[in-house]
């Protein structure tokens, strides 16, 4: 019988509010084997950990049960604490009475009763725990960054700086991401391209960094320190090594009417294209949806004009397999589609545009070469209405419930820049709140209002209606003046909410990484581990984790890089000791377990056994390689004799938990 200590955490009021922690520790004190039971405000705090350590020493505890938050959160913390006072860390179990109890139950009586049962189950399990020793596994000293926007670029550069190999996988033909489409950046108003493109070039030139552009992840296997990844390098029909990026082909291609995604469809590109002048890699790509040669074998003009002979219409998708020690997710964001927002008339008029489109309209490399002109008639707009929170902070279900964070600032930037360049323009900004926390942000916003005379109006736009004469009627309410406004605008700019890139969800699935209901990746801890996913070895960089502006993104990108470097500098990781083990005396040698093992961890040996009647017998028995076994347990069920069991999750432990949970009352 173990000597068990039970420690019930209040988690401030997170647990204590719906679970009577005193009642839980009192009830669990009565369980067989429990010699000490207490509760404390924050078990994970130093004082809390000391409480546990002291009790282990004072009562000679052989087993510890912590009733607290999810073991995915603090199991490692507590295991480390008990190990520091000499108790085997695997003699500790966590009963999850927060995520799976206090947070989902409102009734204190119900919560308390359930917490006691969960505690009992953990006690029942600990009774059967055995000390386990962790093994070691090597770390592949190479990182993978998924996404080549500013987040991915920064992370990759920082990791490479520390001397580790990094691969960037970018689904578009060039790295750079959303930042390449932005004209100027707040609050300094320096040109986005000027600060981004050198970094892109750095990436291309850094010998530690390899860029897989126009590529996507196909499969991820393995675990922290040893991921095995298949990357699908899409056929771009241009040999990257031969193409010099001269751009000759992109001027000769006869397919001229392909919407140019770089300018958000506001102008056209050819079927063979380089997204923009500073693209990295600066290599042409053929769009197979528009290329005549690829569609019906007629044309071949680009091949003729290519001096380097880089065009290869027969190119196939190529699957590259590579091993990585760590994976960084930097998949970024996109503005939401606005087709559900009829009231803003986005689909009714070309002159109702999104903020990102506005960026392109003011950018020198944009469709208007940087002159602000109405998309419909190319005329200079004199009245511009900016609408904030389009789809953000929206609980109607059409948009997103969260604040997109960046819109207030970029709208201030747009308004300010417009007024500066075109002082004859009337600029209105409709807002719910103006949120400008951040260094020099509020000053920036105030400048827009005070120096540049932008009309900031608190209130929401009710209707945007294009008129036959080209004017756009904006109906809105001014909440402060308490009046209805009717503005005849020439251009309406919508600050569309941002959402995670569509590729994020399937990627999360591949990585077995958590996501929240909005498809943002979940961090391991919102405050303490903001750049790590709960899945070991997966790190988060940039807007894939939540809306972020460039400074935040870059900070997080560097933080993620630091975490990756911390992992890659290790030669070995201690491995999970919860691995399968075969009881040779009961093993039939039937090979069922071997067949279901995904790691090839099971082999067979012929071994001599002394039988009860003093004869010897050579029997074929299974042998598990603990360094290779990952502890899934598939073999344990395949084994008919029950010879195969899993340490840490043994048959008897799981059945003890079942018993404790089902105990009739």
């Amino acid at each position, binding site marked *: 019988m173990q000597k068990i200590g039970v420690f019930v955490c209040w988690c401030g009021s997170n647990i204590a509010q719906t679970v009577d922690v005193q009642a839980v520790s009192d009830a669990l004190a009565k369980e067989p084997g429990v010699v000490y039971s207490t509760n404390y405000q924050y078990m994970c705090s130093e004082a809390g950990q000391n409480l546990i350590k002291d009790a282990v020493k004072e009562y000679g505890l052989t087993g510890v049960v912590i009733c607290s938050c999810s073991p995915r959160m603090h199991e490692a913390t507590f295991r480390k604490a008990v190990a520091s006072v000499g108790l085997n860390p695997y003699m500790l179990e966590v009963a999850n009475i927060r995520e799976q109890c206090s947070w989902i139950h409102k009734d204190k009586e119900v919560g308390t009763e359930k917490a006691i049962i969960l505690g009992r189950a953990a006690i029942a399990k600990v009774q059967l725990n055995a000390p386990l020793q962790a093994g070691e596994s090597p770390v592949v000293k190479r990182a993978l960054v998924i996404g080549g926007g500013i987040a991915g670029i920064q992370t990759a550069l920082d990791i490479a700086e520390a001397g580790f190999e990094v691969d960037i996988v970018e689904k578009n033909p060039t790295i750079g991401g959303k930042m390449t489409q932005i004209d100027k950046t707040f609050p300094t108003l320096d040109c986005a391209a000027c600060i981004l493109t050198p970094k892109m070039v750095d990436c291309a030139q850094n010998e530690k960094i390899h860029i897989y552009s126009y590529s996507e992840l196909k499969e991820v296997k393995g675990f922290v320190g040893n991921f095995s990844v298949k990357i699908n390098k899409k056929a771009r029909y241009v040999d990257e090594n031969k193409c010099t990026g001269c751009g000759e082909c992109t001027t000769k291609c006869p397919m001229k009417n392909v919407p140019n995604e770089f300018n958000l469809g506001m102008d056209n590109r050819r079927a063979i294209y380089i997204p923009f002048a500073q693209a990295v890699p600066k290599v042409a790509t053929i769009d197979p949806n528009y290329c005549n040669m690829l569609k019906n074998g007629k044309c071949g003009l680009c091949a003729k004009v290519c001096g380097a002979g880089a065009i290869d219409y027969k190119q196939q998708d190529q699957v590259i397999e590579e091993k990585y020690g760590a994976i960084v997710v930097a998949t970024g964001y996109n503005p939401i589609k606005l087709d559900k927002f009829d009231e803003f008339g986005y689909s009714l008029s070309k002159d109702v545009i999104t903020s990102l489109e506005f960026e392109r309209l003011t950018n020198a490399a944009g469709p208007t070469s940087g002159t602000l002109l109405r998309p419909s008639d190319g005329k200079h707009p004199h009245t511009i209405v900016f609408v904030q929170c389009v789809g953000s902070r929206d609980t109607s279900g059409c948009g997103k419930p969260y604040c997109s964070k960046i819109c207030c600032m970029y709208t201030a930037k747009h308004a300010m820049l417009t007024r500066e360049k075109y002082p004859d323009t009337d600029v209105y900004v409709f807002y719910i709140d103006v949120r400008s926390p951040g260094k020099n942000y509020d000053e920036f916003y105030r400048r827009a209002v005070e120096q540049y005379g932008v009309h900031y109006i608190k209130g929401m736009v009710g209707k945007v209606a294009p008129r036959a004469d080209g004017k756009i009627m904006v109906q809105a309410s001014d909440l402060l003046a308490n009046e209805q406004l009717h503005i005849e605008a020439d251009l309406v700019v919508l600050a569309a909410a941002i959402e995670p890139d569509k590729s994020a969800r399937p990627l999360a699935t591949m990585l077995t990484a958590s996501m929240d209901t909005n498809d943002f990746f979940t961090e391991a801890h919102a405050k303490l581990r903001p750049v790590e996913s709960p899945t070991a070895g997966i790190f988060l960089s940039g807007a894939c984790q939540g809306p972020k502006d460039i400074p935040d993104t870059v900070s997080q990108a560097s933080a993620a890089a630091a975490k990756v470097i911390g992992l890659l500098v290790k030669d070995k990781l201690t491995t999970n000791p919860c691995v399968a083990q075969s009881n040779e005396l*009961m*093993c039939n040698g039937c*090979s069922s377990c071997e*067949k*279901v093992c995904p790691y090839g961890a099971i082999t067979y040996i012929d071994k001599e056994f002394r039988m009860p009647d003093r004869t010897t017998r050579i029997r074929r028995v299974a042998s598990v390689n603990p360094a290779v076994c990952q502890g899934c347990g598939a073999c344990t069920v395949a084994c008919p*004799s*029950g010879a195969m069991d899993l340490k840490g999750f043994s*048959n008897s432990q799981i059945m003890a938990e079942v018993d404790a949970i089902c105990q009739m009352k």
Partner: protein
Amino acid sequence: MQGMMLNRAKELLSDGTVNRVLGWQAGEFVYDITPAVFETEEELDAGFVYNGFCGNNLSKYLVKETLKDGKILVFLKPCDTYSFNQLLTEHRIDREKICAIGIPCDGKTSGEMLKAKGISGITGISEDADNFVVDTIYGQTTVAKADALEERCKTCKSKKHVAYDELLGEDGEILDSHRFDMVAKLEAMTPDERFAFWREQLSKCIRCNACRNVCPACTCEQCVFDNPKSGIAQKAAADSFEENMFHIIRAFHVAGRCTDCGECSRVCPQNIPLHLLNRKFIKDINELYGDYQAGAEVGTRAPLTNYTQEDVEPSIVYHREGK
């Protein structure tokens, strides 16, 4: 056939090809045949028999016999050869130590089957092509063989030998046996009817373990039900749950490995149709994952240690045809 087998066994014994012969030994009443190992020609002459009552599947004895030195001759009926292959697949027997002779089978019966026809006081039985002629102290009765066959033989899946070193007599064909008819009939019942059916049957269980111990798929060094550390060890079916538990788990442990030899039902002293549980798994496997006959070949991957990405979801159980 008995004569041919006897002669061949003697030849192989005398020329040293084999050291022992695994076959069937005559008993008191014609029908009470015991599997036996014969080491000499004299022993063979004294007791070796092969007739319509030699139902025992001898393949499982090879687990024990191939641990011994020397080579053993075993006679295998078509359905026994499937068990033989399955045991080879699972590395439970040593092929090198076995000389397997395939022998034909017209289906088997048993004393129990005859007694179920109201025959009692049996003093002698003779058989011709179609009939058993049974002498009893109460008179003589003739029973058509087809009527007296064991259930497993009435729905025989194969007269074809899937493994042998030599064959005596003609090899047969794999049959279209309608062996799943009874399973289908049960499936067509309401859950309440099925529950009543199985409760009535399984409540007869006395947990003698005959089904398990005779089963060629149950060759575990120690069965989970005998292992106090397994947490589910049972020595007696103490209540209805344990009756269910034992038979569900046993069927599950042999699922995908059971060749449907029917020994479990043959030996059950309470005549519980245990083979229906195994056949239910076989039928499900065939329907859900494609036809699979355990033991048809050596080395195949059993359905439960295999998968495809397109496998049906467990929810199919809620949506399937029937009640």
